[in-house]
């Protein structure tokens, strides 16, 4: 059986630049696929070519082995990064408008319940908070009971609580075995939601795999973090690799016991010591040498 969505050698040139420079990957049935990268990496352009709203310069996008067509538009649910809705309509009316455009659809009340919009169902959609707007856009994307769901940076700009609520929603959608493509620049989000991730930078994919597999491949160490004031003397004098960043000292090592011994020998207080595994943020820095949220 062909993958739900597959892209092959996708390229997008703009006058004055290249946004996507030869990207290939496939998303299998029921998978949550995360496309990660900093702003300007080419994530949105890639997703829009997959959705059929932006024309690629070259390369192919296949839905269940076929080029995009009427079947794709009927079966795909799409949440754009930014979408203006029609003015003067309530949440319920907006959902009714979109659900009537599809041959297969979910009941409006069901969408409102699923996306926790009961409180604002009769409110003008211009008067929603950031989190409510994102939940409405998700409800619109679910209006046709989609086989595959595209979510382009759905939590950008949300406060932590709204973001966690949104993650719970996505997990319940995943539990229905829907195929999801998610783009984000939050590594935590990708780690929390995605089965497979692809990291994009400057229009190319620089790593692909499950989050844990990627971390295992690239790292065999952990990070010891200390406040800078607890660490006496010059970091350069310390026998292990030390990174000083924003008031913190980070020591990366595969040998935790050895590092702790070395710290105790120097009389360093371990009261505020934190030991954490490597995360996707570290991986991104390792691969690109660039700050992720730049």
């Amino acid at each position, binding site marked *: 059986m062909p993958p739900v969505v597959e892209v092959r050698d996708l390229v997008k040139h703009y006058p004055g630049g290249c946004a996507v420079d030869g990207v290939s990957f496939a998303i299998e049935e029921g998978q949550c696929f995360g496309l990660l990268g900093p702003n300007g990496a080419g994530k949105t352009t890639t997703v829009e070519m997959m959705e059929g*709203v932006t024309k690629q310069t070259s390369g192919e996008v296949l839905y269940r082995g076929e080029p995009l067509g009427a079947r794709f538009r009927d079966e795909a649910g799409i949440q754009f990064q930014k979408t203006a*809705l029609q003015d003067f309509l309530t949440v319920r009316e907006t959902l009714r408008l979109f659900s009537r*455009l599809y041959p297969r659809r979910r009941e409006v009340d069901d969408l409102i319940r699923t996306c926790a919009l009961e409180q604002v169902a009769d409110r003008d959609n211009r008067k929603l908070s950031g989190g409510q707007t994102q939940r409405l856009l998700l409800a619109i994307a679910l209006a046709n009971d989609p086989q595959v769901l595209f979510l382009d940076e759905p939590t950008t700009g949300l406060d932590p609580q709204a973001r966690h609520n949104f993650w719970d929603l996505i997990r319940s959608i995943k539990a229905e075995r829907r195929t999801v493509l998610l783009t984000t620049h939050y590594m935590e989000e990708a780690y929390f939601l995605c089965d497979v991730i692809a990291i994009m930078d400057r229009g190319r994919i620089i790593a692909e795999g499950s989050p844990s597999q990627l971390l295992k491949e690239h790292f065999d160490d952990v990070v010891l973090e200390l406040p800078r004031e607890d660490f006496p003397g010059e970091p350069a004098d310390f026998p292990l690799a030390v990174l000083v960043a924003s008031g913190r000292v980070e020591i990366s090592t595969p040998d935790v016991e050895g590092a702790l011994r070395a710290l105790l020998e120097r009389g360093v207080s371990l009261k505020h010591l934190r030991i954490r595994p490597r995360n996707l943020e570290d991986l991104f820095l390792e691969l690109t040498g660039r700050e992720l949220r730049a």
Partner: protein
Amino acid sequence: MIVRRLLAVWYARNLEFLRDRSTLVFNFLFPLALVIAFAVIFGGQPRALFKVDVIAPADAELNGTIHRFLDTRYVDFVRIEASAIDETVRKVERHQVDLLLDLRAAPRYWINEDSPKGYLAEKLLLESTGGDASRQPVSGAAVRYVDWLLPGVLGMNMMFSCLFGVGYVVVRYRKSGFLRRLSATPVTAFEFGAAQVLSRLMLTISVTAMIYGALALFVPFRNEGSVLLLLVIAITGAFSMIAFGFMMAARIASEELANGAINLASWPMMLLSGVWFPLEGAPAWLQQLAKALPLTQMLDAARAVMLDGAGLANVLPQLGWLVAMTVLFLGIAAAGFRWRAD
């Protein structure tokens, strides 16, 4: 499925229009205020011209050598073609022309026995000739300027409503990205366009009908023809102007540009289509150009019905032209339609 999608977009657009109070109020108040103002200013006054139309042999100058009456001062003598004789007789009936004089053979003249100015003009004619001309009496009430103006103002209001109501809204949808969102659904450009056209058509016709009804109650005006036929003319004309607005908005992505382009199209239409004054004195080429505009055709047909009681057969050429323009505009719009702003 097509009908359901079309109706969904149509319904949503109607809700948006009806809830946008400021625009809604403007749509009703503007034309109403205009017509009432004109009724107050021009009410009861016949047109202020003392005018005699003359049919003369082509090689003759309009002066006393062919008829002594033509030497009379303070009378506006206008030469007309012999083919326009029926039309001019109707103008005499409506008090738009005070006297018609035919000098091709034995002099004949047409006079409206209900017109005070016609009475005076006849006195002058008889004074100068001693009664050598044969009299052709006609009768009919004066056409007040407000009767002539009313179809023009209603038509102008429809034009603005059609051009801006569709053109501007489509451009706003495109700029905001709402169109792009729709492009990711199964909706086609045809369905989207048809929904916008139908929504605006319905709103424009209802508004116009309501204003027509209100005026009929408060400012009695002349309508010699069938109201149903007027409705047919209004729908055909509005359809054509909406299609024109849709064509202008097919590609534009900036509201400022749309505003400029629609204004650029609507002002010449307003001036050339005879909303405020007839174009009879204008150069022939300009009149021909004006004839091509949908608003001109709609007003010609509406005035023929309201002032002369014309029937369907009389206005078929205008209706046919409007339909042809609609097809042309929609074809161009469909071929050039863009969903995205960039």
